[in-house]
């Protein structure tokens, strides 16, 4: 029965296409040459979330209509998935760790796979999943109980299932794997459970671990001098990484030190927390690192997906990396060397006077958590959180969904912690009320961070942005609007109310020559196209 359905789909796609879901690494490297497909979490290895599709334009986007909608049968949590689309098949995830293949023309379910989950430990995070990776004829997913699983793209059958880390200790995975050149990389969450951060690389064929980077040292190891006498913990790697095939470097951000809001027991910069790591994937060695927020106490993980792009600095072509940090600053780094190029706030921040010549923050006094609660911008959830930004090589703009919100940061009295448990009494926040917070889609000059335009949102959003060659930027609101803006001017061109908060990065793809746009709202997956 299933075989017949696949045959029908393949027929519908035309006979000239290769086998179902075959995506060799060499094709993913050149993802921009086949914009009909969305081949990685961020669309390409540079994580740009830019599509070369031009069918939807500022002139016609107002005509978008619902093409189909899909609702998981038993969604257990927030839907935050960003799909991969290959030859008319869309691979989505459902909370907490289910993978489903959908017919991208119709939304029909082709297969679904769910792990058996028992007594899941998820501390300081929602039980959700943000997406899969696809390479060759396999779909790779990581689960909330910290397994990495390879599935057959045609059937959802398990090829291998590897335990990344012990979920009972607090390791949990919500982010997407990165698949490239025979390797699968994956990070984990768990900083609020005070786990020791790690980043792993596995053999794509067998699931055997090739190497592991610990993001924080053991006591006595190099780097432990940045932790005082405390046992280093945190620095988790819970979001997506990017890859530069020419430089053969992987870029991955790390999260907060633990426990977070009371840093008294860990004097020092707490390496490599709140940092970006550039890693040689053949050796598992860190080539360079850049720490954004030394001795972090506000939960400002540096976990946002980095965006790689090429640009001119002082007239010279440079290989660059753009990073909108949860701490409120936009950074431009040289992605070959890790050198700081530029950095400016892209949202209100009250904790730093600015950045010095090396990109290190000039921290203002009295901006840490206090027992009574200290109002600091951005909020505990950051000027951005897990959502992805986009970069258009046409406009050379970096599109960020900025969250303009503060928190009263509360410092607890305890610096004690135990791995696998929430650090009781370490502190937390009281959020500023909604009337005093808002969101904005901002277009930044990618090489300087200078804002070209903004489009204000009623409240801080959790959606991410998508840029297209047709001259559009798509994003959404926490209230439930999905919308398109003019990529050059920020002018609103189209919007629709979807009835619940949008919590996923939009993507675009084409089947049978027709461009579609995907987003989720509440627990429904929506696809829009021109009639």
């Amino acid at each position, binding site marked *: 029965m299933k075989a017949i359905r696949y045959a029908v789909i393949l027929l519908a796609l035309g006979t000239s296409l290769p086998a179902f879901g075959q995506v060799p690494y060499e094709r993913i490297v050149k993802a921009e040459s086949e914009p009909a497909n969305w081949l990685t979490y961020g669309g390409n290895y540079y994580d740009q979330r830019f599509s070369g599709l031009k069918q939807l334009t500022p002139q016609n986007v107002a005509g978008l209509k619902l093409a189909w909608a899909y609702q998981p049968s038993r969604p257990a949590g927030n839907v935050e998935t960003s799909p991969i689309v290959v030859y008319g098949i869309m691979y989505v995830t459902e909370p907490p760790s289910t993978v489903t293949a959908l017919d991208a023309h119709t939304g029909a379910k082709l297969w679904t796979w769910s792990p058996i989950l028992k007594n899941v430990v998820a501390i300081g995070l929602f039980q959700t999943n943000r997406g899969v990776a696809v390479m060759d004829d396999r779909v790779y997913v990581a689960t909330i109980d910290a397994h990495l699983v390879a599935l057959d793209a045609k059937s959802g059958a398990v090829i291998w299932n590897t335990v990344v880390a012990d979920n009972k200790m607090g390791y949990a995975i919500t982010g997407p794997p990165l698949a490239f050149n025979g390797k699968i990389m994956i990070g984990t969450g768990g900083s609020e459970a005070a786990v020791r951060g790690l980043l792993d690389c596995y053999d794509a064929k067998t699931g055997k671990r090739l190497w592991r980077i610990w993001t924080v040292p053991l006591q006595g190891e190099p780097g432990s001098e940045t932790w005082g006498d405390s046992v280093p913990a945190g620095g988790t790697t819970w979001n997506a990484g990017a890859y530069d095939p020419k430089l053969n470097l992987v870029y991955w951000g790390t999260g907060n030190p633990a426990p977070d809001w009371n840093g008294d027991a860990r004097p020092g910069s707490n390496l490599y927390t709140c940092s970006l790591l550039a890693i040689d994937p053949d050796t598992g060695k860190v080539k360079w690192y850049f720490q954004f927020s030394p001795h972090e106490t506000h939960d400002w993980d540096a976990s946002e997906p980095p965006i790689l792009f090429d640009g001119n600095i002082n007239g010279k072509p440079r290989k660059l990396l753009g990073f909108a940090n949860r701490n409120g600053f936009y950074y431009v780094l040289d992605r070959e060397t890790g050198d700081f190029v530029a950095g400016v706030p892209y949202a209100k921040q009250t904790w730093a006077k600015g950045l010095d010549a090396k990109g290190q923050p000039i921290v203002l006094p009295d901006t840490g958590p206090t027992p009574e609660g200290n109002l600091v911008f951005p909020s505990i959830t950051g000027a951005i959180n897990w959502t992805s930004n986009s970069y258009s090589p046409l406009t050379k703009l970096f599109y960020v969904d900025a969250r303009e919100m503060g928190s009263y940061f509360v410092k607890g009295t305890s610096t004690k912690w135990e791995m696998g448990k929430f650090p009781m009494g370490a502190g937390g926040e009281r*959020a500023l009320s*909604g009337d005093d*917070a808002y969101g904005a889609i901002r277009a930044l000059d990618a090489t300087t961070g200078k804002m070209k335009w903004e489009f204000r949102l009623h409240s801080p959003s959790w959606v991410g942005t998508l840029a297209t060659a047709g001259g559009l930027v798509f994003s959404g609101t926490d209230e439930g609007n999905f919308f398109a803006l003019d990529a050059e001017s920020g002018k609103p061109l189209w919007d629709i109310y979807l009835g619940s908060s949008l919590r996923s990065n939009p993507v675009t793809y084409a089947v049978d020559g027709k461009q579609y746009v995907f987003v989720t709202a509440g627990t429904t997956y929506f696809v829009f196209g021109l009639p």
Partner: protein
Amino acid sequence: MIRRCCVAAFVLLASGAVTQAQIPRDTTPVVAKTSPADIATGKALYEANCSKCHGLDGGGSDGPSLQGVAQRIGDEAVGNIIRGGIPGTGMNGFGSLTVDETGQVVGYLRSLGNTADMEIAKGDPTKGKAVYDSSGCAGCHIISGEGGGVGPELTRVGAMRGPSYLRTTLLTPGAILPKEGGVMERGRFTQFLFVHVVTKDGRSVDGTRVYEDSFTIELKDATGRFHSFRKLDLCELKKEPGKSVMPSFKDTLSATQLDDLVAYLAGLKGAQ
């Protein structure tokens, strides 16, 4: 089109706020500590931890009134709520407070209840009901199924709001506006916010905000009619905290009538 018909009611409890974690707690029963020193400490703890949602005098704000709550449901039950929270609501657990500190907070709440009782005792609730009936209140408010739904439903208003809060609201209706129960990350928006809009074609509408997103706003006017606007179609959108569609009763009620009305409303506790 009406997307969300918000039946206006004083907020019961802010819903949807996500606590960082459920904090395991010492299960020793909480007993109110009522020495002057304990009450002074309880007051300081209350003001630091509770007043933001429940008001400085415990008379309710975003959260319900706590005046007299210990007298009604007992010290231990109040202590359990303080330490454990109410899952699914905006009431976080305050597990960082020790059992003794919680007892001091409960002791302070008892003293607040006594103060409120004295204020309520200034009026006659039976006469207050007559004031309510003759002042047109039921044109806009529902009590036990009777009345109109323009303004907040008042069947349990005495459990939600203390007498001083009620008095302030009758005199200056927009003075204290509660926050809606918002999604954690979105923050909590002011309810009953007075908004003045003017459309590009010259239409002017005043009303209470019942819904707003990045592209639209929905108002309820003083007659209870809903108006939906796309923000791009407006030339003016003015939010006026402090104002209200409800008139002030400052000049229409005597001091005695006001005391009576407050006593009546403060006694509306609904089905317990």
